[in-house]
């Protein structure tokens, strides 16, 4: 603190110091005059007795801690002057560091958003989510489940269980229930739009306490069947639909045709209790029955319907173990009372909930670590590069350093000077990197986006990002500054000052520099191999046989709200007819699950008459498809027939199976004409006739083999929503207006959702492969450029140092081609060692990414070979210019130079 005030009042301190010392001398002189000396004599003696005024002033400054500052400023000024003198060097240094630090900053910003940012509510660190796992995955589970049962995500609970557990809860502040819901159709001022929302229990706002920026939250009284329906909207929705107007409060909008009143607006930072979604409308649980009715009415009344996520804050001082134990007892009791099924009570546990329900972390953790590692490698290469350049420069500055030492500078002092120069470069590079990172912060999330809508990841820079950028800047500065600084202090004053010091051949031949180049080459090879592996994976995935033709197919979803269409078949069929009549549409069909979109359905089916009992094989995959499905997607029918418009609810149900199902279930038989029966408990066990066998086509995941699949006729086995697929030669934009018009003519409140082409749909499932291919290729190229600069630098340096030697060789009769090959041989040796090290490292490390590759061994010889070859070529190209310069050394000139 004091030090800072010294800095700010520097001028005053200096004048005061002057005045004080002058007063001293004057007083002393006056005393001497009084003792009888003449005035001049007195002043002279006073000055002598006082000693060197400037020396004492400097000591005073040192006492205040100002000397270090002065020296630092001097060093900085000198360093800046050096930079201006070598603009090329400075530019290379700042750009390479900027790119390295920028890449790291951008990735860290992304990582921070995914891994560190918690739900914007107070005490989010105490949030826990309730979870259970089935004991026996094969056993029958009591009740329908709406939601994910993935082991690493929290599992859903029935409303009844939630209420029981909430009543008996003593370890959490309160238990709060919520459910994420998608594709609600919200009509504001006559315009329908699909929005995602969140059903929340009445205590959600009161207990979690997220910030609101307008109106009031949903209160306990609102969560009751008799209350008038109210909703809270998100800040984004408020801006988009209402232009942040206060009039939005109290406005009645319709949600799936149910009129609801907007009472409040969430703060922009609160995105709901599930990370990664864009939830725009928050409504009380009690509205579920009206807005999103299921076949059986309100879910609140169904005791064994598993659908609600439960979150709560641990009471202060309660440990996880205690809370877990208490809630488990309560869970088991409630389970017994509510489910009335005592076998196999699921294992209960609580899991971290500071981000709410978080699927993104699951999806991105591994890619993020890989990306951070890659970006770290690039930064390391940049560091090695700079260290190398600085080392080369420090040898040319040997004379300067020797001079400094000879004039009395201490070695630490010289070292500090060199380190300051490095740090200044690092800080400039860090600043450039921060800027780049700021511009590029949306780049990485956008690489993972689907091309037709955004992921909703909006990474923000905050102090953690700045701290990170600052820290890596310091570390890089130290990394590439220490070696040259150390080298400088080893300078031998005597030989450094002699003119002939240049030609002494006994010094180590830039061993450190060469080691750095080898290091650079091996890291670059590592990155290139990574790039090659991911590029080939992407290529493999794009060229893999999927069993259908995705070209010229446009997809969109129609989701008729059940509150309006309890039986949506009619409206879907109407839409299908309208669209089929559009001029540029060749054929149109629909399916319950879109293809290669990570969406699927599996149900237990067996050949009719098969003895009932536990299924010995996994249930087959099922899909409901419209009449022209196989024609539109060009999936061949091998045997029997395709679906027709006559396969409707007036005739017995029929099915088409794919080749794999036929082979697995009816080996060596013709399945056409045979029947299958549902083995799902509670389903109609009527036999379903197989009327055709289709060729295998991939269903939900492009990486998996085509699964055994049963197709049902959509008209006989309709779902509440459908994905329409139409084959058209027209462009997407030109036809969407026509589709919109057709749908509006059927129902003006029905929005069309997720318009995309089938190829875009497939690309979306390749987003992480694509992102990795792009990023590793970018990093690989960057590393290659840096490495070639490094090789060029070190070779140019050795050649310039060996000018004498080369001159002598040539004077003794060496041909220039011999000199050329001598230098190139050295370059090749460096590259070769680097490549050998890099190959070994790659062989060890690529295994870690094996699960992200497709149809490719992590030690794919073609990729390894190509990357190594590329590096050899680049290395020789980088070494060629210095080699040619060496071969053109004029022996007379070189020797006379001495």
């Amino acid at each position, binding site marked *: 603190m004091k030090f800072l005030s010294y800095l700010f009042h520097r001028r005053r301190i200096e004048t005061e110091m002057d005045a*004080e*010392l002058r007063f001293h001398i004057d007083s002393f002189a006056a005393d001497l005059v009084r003792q009888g000396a003449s005035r001049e004599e007195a002043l002279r003696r006073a000055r002598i007795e006082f000693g060197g005024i400037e020396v004492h002033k400097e000591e005073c400054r040192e006492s*205040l801690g100002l000397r270090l500052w002065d020296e630092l400023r001097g060093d900085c000024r000198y360093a800046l002057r050096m930079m201006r003198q070598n603009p090329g060097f400075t530019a290379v240094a700042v750009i390479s560091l900027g790119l390295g630090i920028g890449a790291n900053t951008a990735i860290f910003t992304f990582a921070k958003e995914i891994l560190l940012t918690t739900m914007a509510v107070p005490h989010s660190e105490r949030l826990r989510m309730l979870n259970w796992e089935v004991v026996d995955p094969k056993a029958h589970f009591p009740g329908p489940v709406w939601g994910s049962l993935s082991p690493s995500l929290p599992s859903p609970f029935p409303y009844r269980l939630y209420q029981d557990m909430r009543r008996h809860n003593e370890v959490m502040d309160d238990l709060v229930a919520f459910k994420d819901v998608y594709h609600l159709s919200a009509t504001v001022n006559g315009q329908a739009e699909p929005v995602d929302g969140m059903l929340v229990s009445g205590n959600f706002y009161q207990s979690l306490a997220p910030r609101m920026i307008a109106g009031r939250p949903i209160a306990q009284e609102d969560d009751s069947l008799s209350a008038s329906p109210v909703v809270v909207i998100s800040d984004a929705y408020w801006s988009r639909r209402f232009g942040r107007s206060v009039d939005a409060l109290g406005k009645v909008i319709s949600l799936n045709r149910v009129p609801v009143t907007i009472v409040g607006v969430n703060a922009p930072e609160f995105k709901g209790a599930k990370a990664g979604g864009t939830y725009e409308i928050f409504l009380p649980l009690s509205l579920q029955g009206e807005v999103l009715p299921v076949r059986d009415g309100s879910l609140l009344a169904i005791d064994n319907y598993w659908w609600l996520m439960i979150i709560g804050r641990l009471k202060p001082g309660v440990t996880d173990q205690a809370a877990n134990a208490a809630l488990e007892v309560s869970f088991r009791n409630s389970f017994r009372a509510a489910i009335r099924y005592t076998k196999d009570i699921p294992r209960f546990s609580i899991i971290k909930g500071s981000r709410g329900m978080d699927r993104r972390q699951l999806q991105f953790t591994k890619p993020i670590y890989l990306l951070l590692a890659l970006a770290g490698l690039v930064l390391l290469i940049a560091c090695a590069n700079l260290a190398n350049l600085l080392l080369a420069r420090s040898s040319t500055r040997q004379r300067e350093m020797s001079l400094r030492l000879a004039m009395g500078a201490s070695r630490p002092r010289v070292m500090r000077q060199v380190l300051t120069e490095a740090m200044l470069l690092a800080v400039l590079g860090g600043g450039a990197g921060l800027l780049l990172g700021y511009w590029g912060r949306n780049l990485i999330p956008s690489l993972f986006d689907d091309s037709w809508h955004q992921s909703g990841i909006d990474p923000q820079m905050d102090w953690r990002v700045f701290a990170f950028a600052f820290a890596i800047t310091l570390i890089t500065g130290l990394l590439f500054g220490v070696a040259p600084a150390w080298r400088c202090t080893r300078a031998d004053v005597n030989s450094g000052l002699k003119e002939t010091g240049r030609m002494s051949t006994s010094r180590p031949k830039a061993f450190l520099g060469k080691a750095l180049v080898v290091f650079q080459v091996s890291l670059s090879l590592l990155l290139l191999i990574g790039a090659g592996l991911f590029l080939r994976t992407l290529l493999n995935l794009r060229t893999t046989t999927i069993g259908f033709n995705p070209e010229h197919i446009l997809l969109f979803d129609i989701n008729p709200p059940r509150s309006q269409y309890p039986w949506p078949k009619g409206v879907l069929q109407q839409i299908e007819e309208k669209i089929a009549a559009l001029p540029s549409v060749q054929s149109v069909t629909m399916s319950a699950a879109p293809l290669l979109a990570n969406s699927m359905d599996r149900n237990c089916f067996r050949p009719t008459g098969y003895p009932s009992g536990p299924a010995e094989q996994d249930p087959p995959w099922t899909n409901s498809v419209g009449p022209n499905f196989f024609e539109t997607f060009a999936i061949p029918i091998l045997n029997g027939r395709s679906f027709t418009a006559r396969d409707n609810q007036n005739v017995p149900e029929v099915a088409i199976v794919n080749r794999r199902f036929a082979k697995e279930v009816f080996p060596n038989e013709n399945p056409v004409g045979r029947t299958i029966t549902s083995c799902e408990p509670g389903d109609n066990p009527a036999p379903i006739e197989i009327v055709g066998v289709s060729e295998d086509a991939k269903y939900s995941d492009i990486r998996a083999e085509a699964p055994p699949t049963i197709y049902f006729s959509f008209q006989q086995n309709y779902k509440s929503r459908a994905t329409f697929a139409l084959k058209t030669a027209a462009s997407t934009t030109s036809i969407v207006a026509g589709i919109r018009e057709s749908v509006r003519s059927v129902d003006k409140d029905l929005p069309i959702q997720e318009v995309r082409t089938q190829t875009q749909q497939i690309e979306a499932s390749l987003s992480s492969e694509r992102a990795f291919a792009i990023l590793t290729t970018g990093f690989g190229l960057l590393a290659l450029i840096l490495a070639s600069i490094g090789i060029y630098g070190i070779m140019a340096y050795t050649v310039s140092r060996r000018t004498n030697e080369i001159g002598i060789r040539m004077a003794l009769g060496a041909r220039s081609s011999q000199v050329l090959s001598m230098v190139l041989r050295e370059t090749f040796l460096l590259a070769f060692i680097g490549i050998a090290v890099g190959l070994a490292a790659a062989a060890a490390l690529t295994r870690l990414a094996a699960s992200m590759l497709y149809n490719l061994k992590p030690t794919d010889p073609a990729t390894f070979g190509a990357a190594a070859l590329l590096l050899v070529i680049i290395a020789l190209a980088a070494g060629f210019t210095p080699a040619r310069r060496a071969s053109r050394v004029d022996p007379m000139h070189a020797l006379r130079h001495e």
Partner: protein
Amino acid sequence: MLILKAVSLGPLHGYGILLRIQQISKDRLEIQQGSLYPALYRLEHQGWISSVWGESENNRKAKYYSLTAAGRKQLQLETKNWNRMADVIGGILDAEEI
């Protein structure tokens, strides 16, 4: 410690401190005049003395130093330490004479 002691008797300017030290030590202690100031700055930086600008005897502006509370404590501590040290060393020297 000498400076602290000199200042403890009342606010003094730099030259006054020098004179005071010479006076207390009866001119037996010779200090280079200029090196007094770095010491003063250091003591002030450590917070043991504080300074204020005032009028000197001959009506010039001069910087007066006085002891702070922390300085007083430090002086007591150092005096005690010094006395103990002197006792120990004196004891050793006496013992040798026997």
